[in-house]
């Protein structure tokens, strides 16, 4: 069943190629099917996961290259199940937004499904080789999707994003190969490696030497300061559904892989660099927050805001305590859903007005009440207001990291104030006040197809805001076992 998560979108994409271009409804139906079936599977997996037992479940394995110890093995633990659920929500909502593409719909949906499948691959694989393979596969659709269907400065944004992420990826690949070679286990299997390295850890100096390759390599996609600069530009250039997937899910692959590979396999190495990582995330939180205050373009602002939020997640990872890690994982989930919702709303605005400056809008609360409500809700979630799941997550990060980095946590709490500053100001400008501009044509989202993606995302935020146990009961045992602590 876990294989199906990856391969349903892939095969749907292939089927899509045989549908003629002039049958848009059939194309869109297929795309929704390709993203919707895995969504349903994820829900089933989420409710059938045995929380009492914990560990990796739904495992299966196909021998792939036996001579090198590579097998296509899949399985989900609390962390990856949470992220699969996040991806299921965002990619299903994103599929609805993708169907709004009018220009060259077929190749766009094709690339979208390939991207969706590859991301499921990353979150469900338990083999380092396949983790990397699917991770890099996401690049194939990303470049053309941004460069062709994007807006403003799209070629520069697409190239910058691709090159940054690739440069990070190949560093990480080097790190993975070194790890494989040094572990002397002749296996890329994540679980086997974790067990082996837990009983006989690698030489500390080697860990210290190797950890930066993984931390920076995957830190790039997590927009770790100072290698974050691809992110706001890339998001500003990308079409709506790509911004949603990228800010919502792709970025979370960075912390996820750091957690899986660096924290689990090279704990002493990460410990050695944790101060540096924490300082960098602290700078990221404040710097990107400040940069967001100065933005006049909504997409740039949300882009910087996501860099700033990723700082909290990385801070939680740097602290390496069970509480902070659990906070980081649940923030990955709630920030992902929230960012996707925000980009979806901006997408609606931009599609109709081709404007996205903060000052271009005003009085949207009267003009398009549904969209404005969603925007306000997403902003409040981003602020970490109680009632949304972000609040719980951020609190856990602060509590968990306090002992290790009190100063940085203090600054990070201050970062929330900055977030409040730019978000409240934006909400005020965009949603309240007099109606600016002549947006007589601007229509609110109407009908099931337009409202559903936003309802889906914000609903999930609310549900897990009031029912944090739903996620935390998954995350906490998994995080503890990845740290090697008996829960």
């Amino acid at each position, binding site marked *: 069943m876990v294989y199906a998560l990856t391969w349903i979108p892939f095969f749907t994409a292939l089927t899509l190629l045989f549908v003629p271009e002039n049958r848009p409804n059939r194309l869109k139906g297929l795309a929704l099917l390709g993203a919707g079936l895995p969504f349903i599977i994820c829900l089933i997996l989420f409710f059938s996961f045995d929380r009492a037992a914990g560990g990796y479940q739904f495992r299966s394995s196909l021998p792939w290259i036996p001579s090198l110890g590579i097998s296509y093995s899949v399985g989900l633990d609390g962390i990856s199940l949470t992220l699969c659920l996040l991806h299921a929500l965002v990619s299903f909502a994103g599929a609805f937004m993708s169907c709004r593409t009018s220009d060259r719909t077929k190749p766009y949906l094709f690339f979208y499904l390939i991207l969706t499948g590859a991301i499921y691959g990353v979150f469900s694989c338990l083999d380092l080789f396949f983790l990397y393979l699917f991770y890099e*596969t996401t690049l194939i659709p990303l470049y053309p999707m941004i*460069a062709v269907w994007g807006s403003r400065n799209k070629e520069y944004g697409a190239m910058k994003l691709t090159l940054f992420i690739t440069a990070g990826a190949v560093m990480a690949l*080097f790190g993975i*190969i070194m790890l494989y070679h040094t572990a002397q286990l002749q296996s890329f299997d994540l679980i086997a490696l974790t067990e082996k390295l837990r009983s006989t850890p690698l030489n500390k100096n080697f860990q210290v030497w190797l950890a930066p390759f993984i931390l920076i390599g995957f830190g790039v996609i997590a927009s770790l300061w100072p290698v974050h600069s691809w992110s706001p530009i890339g998001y500003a250039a990308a079409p709506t559904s790509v911004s949603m997937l990228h800010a919502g899910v792709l970025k979370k692959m960075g912390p996820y892989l750091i957690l899986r590979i660096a924290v689990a396999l090279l704990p002493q190495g990460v410990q050695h660099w944790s101060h540096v990582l924490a300082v960098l995330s602290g700078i990221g939180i404040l710097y990107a927050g400040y940069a967001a205050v100065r933005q006049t373009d909504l997409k740039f602002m949300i882009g910087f805001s996501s860099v700033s939020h990723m700082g909290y997640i990385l801070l939680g990872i740097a602290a390496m305590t069970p509480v902070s890690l659990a906070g980081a994982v649940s923030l990955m989930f709630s920030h992902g859903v929230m960012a996707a919702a925000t980009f979806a709303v901006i997408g609606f605005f931009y599609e109709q007005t081709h404007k996205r400056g903060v000052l271009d809008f005003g009085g949207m609360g009267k003009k398009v009440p549904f969209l404005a409500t969603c925007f306000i809700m997403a902003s409040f979630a981003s602020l970490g207001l109680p009632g949304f799941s972000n609040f719980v997550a951020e609190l856990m990060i602060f509590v968990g990291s306090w002992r290790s980095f009190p100063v940085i946590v203090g600054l990070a709490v201050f970062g929330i104030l900055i977030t409040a500053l730019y978000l409240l100001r934006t909400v005020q400008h965009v949603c309240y006040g007099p109606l600016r501009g002549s947006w007589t044509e601007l229509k609110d989202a109407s009908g099931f197809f337009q409202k559903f993606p936003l309802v889906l995302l914000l609903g999930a935020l609310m549900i897990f805001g009031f029912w944090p146990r739903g996620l935390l009961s998954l995350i906490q045992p998994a995080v503890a076992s990845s740290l090697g602590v008996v829960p």
Partner: protein
Amino acid sequence: MMPELKAMLPEWIGLAVLCWMFTVELLHGDAPRDPKTKGVYRVPVGGLAVIVLSLLFVCGKKAAAFGGIFQSDMPAVSMKLFFSAAAFFLLPMFRKYFTDAGPRLSEFLLVFWICFLGMFFLVSSRDFLLLFISLEIVTLSFYIMTSYAKKDTESIEAGLKYLILGSLASAFMIFGISLLYAATGSTAFEAVRVAFTADPQNTLMLIGLLLILSALGFKIAAVPFHLWAPDVYQGAPPPVAAFLAVGSKAAGIMVLINLLSDVFGAFEPGRKMLFSVLAFMTILYGNLGALVQTNIRRLFGYSSIGHAGYLLIALAANPQDGYAAAFYYLMAYAVSTLTAFYVINITVQAVGSSAIADFRGLASRSPWLAGAMFMALLSLAGVPPLAGFAGKFFVLLAAVKAGLTALALTGALAVAVSLFYYLNVVRVMYVDESIKESPVPITLSDKVILTVLMAGMILIGFYQSPFLQISLRAVSAAK
């Protein structure tokens, strides 16, 4: 059966086809156009199919001919299968390039076939003289093929440059061989191996070895013997450039593997050091040089240097993993390069120029061609799940296993560099508006061939296991 007949069955078939081609040329040599017989194209294709069958027949049996100077073993047969597979895709490219107006296809195919057979002898030779002669057959045919577009000055220029530098390389080669002969009194691989193993510090033999390696470095376009590559790739007809990339480079690598693993197996640790340095320079030069190119064929000239660098990393690594990785890399490189040149061949004829800028809007003019090119470029850059990724992965793995950490890191980072210039072509094809809206025509057979190549890229890139087995067996005897 005579041993000569048994070991050389594929070669005899090839020679028979060659005789037929000669006869047709003799009978119709003064005709301005291709002789009306359809056989001009069909006989080589059919001959190729029979050769593949006969290769499968001799596969797995070690046999020698002509007193041991010709040997048919697993590495040689694998390489011959490799060349034949490539030829299946090259022949339609040649037919497309040589339309009615240009030079005659029949004459060109004759030269191609001679070159093709030369490669067969090259990978089977167990004697330096046979090695030299077959290498010369290959190289001489390439001089002719490179300058075959007689009315195109770039093509003539490329041929001349290739000739001058190639002659120099040949001179190195023969001088190296004569030094080896002076030291050992024999040109047979076995005799040289015995002498070299007994005394690996012998100066005369080491100089001979270095000269021979230089000549082979020329064949695979390794820095500092790379100068011809960009010019020749740019000037030669696209199918010939593809053949250079796939055939000539692969043959050079296989001869290097043969020599290093067998005759000069005692050349340690010199091999590791020498090839590490060469690989480092070659990767950097090829990838950095390609960054600023504006001509697609010249870009591929530089990129072929960059890929030679990865192959050299594999040669610097430990023999068992490294050589298998090199063979795997060759397969991946071949299928991606053939795809790319198949598209270039059609597009250059349709737009009449090989400037990258003239590829603009290809995606709307022909989604098939642009799609295939997109995959080929990403595969060459090493993006999974395409062939190039698996090739690079095995090469880097072999390098790390051999302790060549810095080299592996260089190779990994060069992927990011190469992605820039490959994506640049993608950008031109997909993003830029085209000047002409007229579609670029492609036939059904083009679609079939491109589909096979694309499927090959995904298979080699994603279902690695069987291809890895092939690679391991291909270099198994060469230990």
